[in-house]
């Protein structure tokens, strides 16, 4: 009987260890995480507008008033410039690394002018950009990040149905393409 109790105790300790191992390693193995789902939306460096119902990639716009678009980016070659233009009651952008940790977020009040213009760059690219100071980028907010891969989420608010065309236009005009450095 003592041996059975010992075996059970062994099992419980093993269960505890397994619990910790799964919890700690889940973020690196999960294929259901937000980054994988954003990649499943379609080609990277392009904003994909989400539907109200869960799509094939497993994403949806969760808030009925916030139209949402996502874009996966990769900074290994070139920096990425996120732009969008339009006057809305509210819009916001959040960028995450591939482990879904927030890198940077901004909303219409904290941005310059009434448009979105954010440049994501690795420290090396950011140094090169500051040195070159290309004039079209003088208004851009340069965000330095060590995360090479990640995704951006752009939300546009339509508090009433009549704002829908504006948010649709805002998200359709949003750009997430790479910036060629010379």
């Amino acid at each position, binding site marked *: 009987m003592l041996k*059975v109790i010992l*075996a059970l105790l*062994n099992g*419980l300790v093993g*269960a505890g260890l397994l619990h910790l191992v*799964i919890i700690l390693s889940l*973020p690196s193995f999960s294929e259901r995480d937000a980054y994988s789902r954003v990649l499943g939306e379609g080609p990277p460096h392009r904003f994909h507008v989400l539907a109200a*119902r869960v799509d094939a990639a497993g994403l949806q716009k969760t808030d009925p*008033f916030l139209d949402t678009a996502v874009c996966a980016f990769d900074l290994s070659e070139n920096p990425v410039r996120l732009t969008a233009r339009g006057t809305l009651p509210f819009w916001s952008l959040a960028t995450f690394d591939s482990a879904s940790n927030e890198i940077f977020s901004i*909303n219409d009040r904290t941005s310059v002018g009434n448009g979105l213009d954010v440049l994501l760059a690795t420290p090396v690219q950011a140094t090169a950009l500051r040195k070159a100071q290309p004039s079209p980028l003088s208004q851009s907010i340069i965000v330095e990040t060590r995360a090479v891969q990640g995704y951006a989420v752009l939300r546009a608010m339509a508090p009433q149905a009549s704002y829908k065309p504006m948010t649709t236009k805002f998200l359709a005009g949003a750009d997430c393409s790479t910036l060629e450095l010379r």
Partner: protein
Amino acid sequence: MQKVLPGLFRLPFLVLLALTVAFGGGIWSTLVALDATTGFGAIRLGAWEAFPQAQTADADPYAKAHRANGGRLLYGSAEGLSFTATVDQKGERLSGRCTYLISGQTPVARLWTLFASRANGEAPATGQDLPVALNSRTVLRDGNGAFVITIAPQAAPGNWLAVPPDEPFRLTLTLLDTPTAGSSGLIDLAMPRIDRIGCGHA
């Protein structure tokens, strides 16, 4: 036990028992933990609950595992903070059989949105004629800026949020562009109350 099992099978039996408990218990407890909690670091205000750190690198391992498994798009700290409620002010589950009143004011925020969803988090059906969601621009307020919202399957005067009848539901109140998102939860925040005012079809 010695009498039931011949000596030859005793050791394999004990190993099997230990392994079954380890794998069964480990997997079961992980599934329960992922299902039950979004991690530590919640701020609770009355019936409402929010996780201001859930999307950051500082989130605890349970929050990170939960977010990797859930795959939801979380709000950045400059975007807003999402509060959810599955119970009323007295701690009883929100149900479509009952009528509730949400009253009071929200913490400081530029805008807010409120919607009801199914208990499993499924989004409300939009494009229906029923008001399944409200926001700070469409809500009717009194002279002090406070609001009262009736939540019921049957239509009600004033602010009405329609919920599916006879089903548990969950409320999500998202504060957009709010200093609350950066708060440690130590400052005194007042969230609206959720009071049950009646049940059944009486």
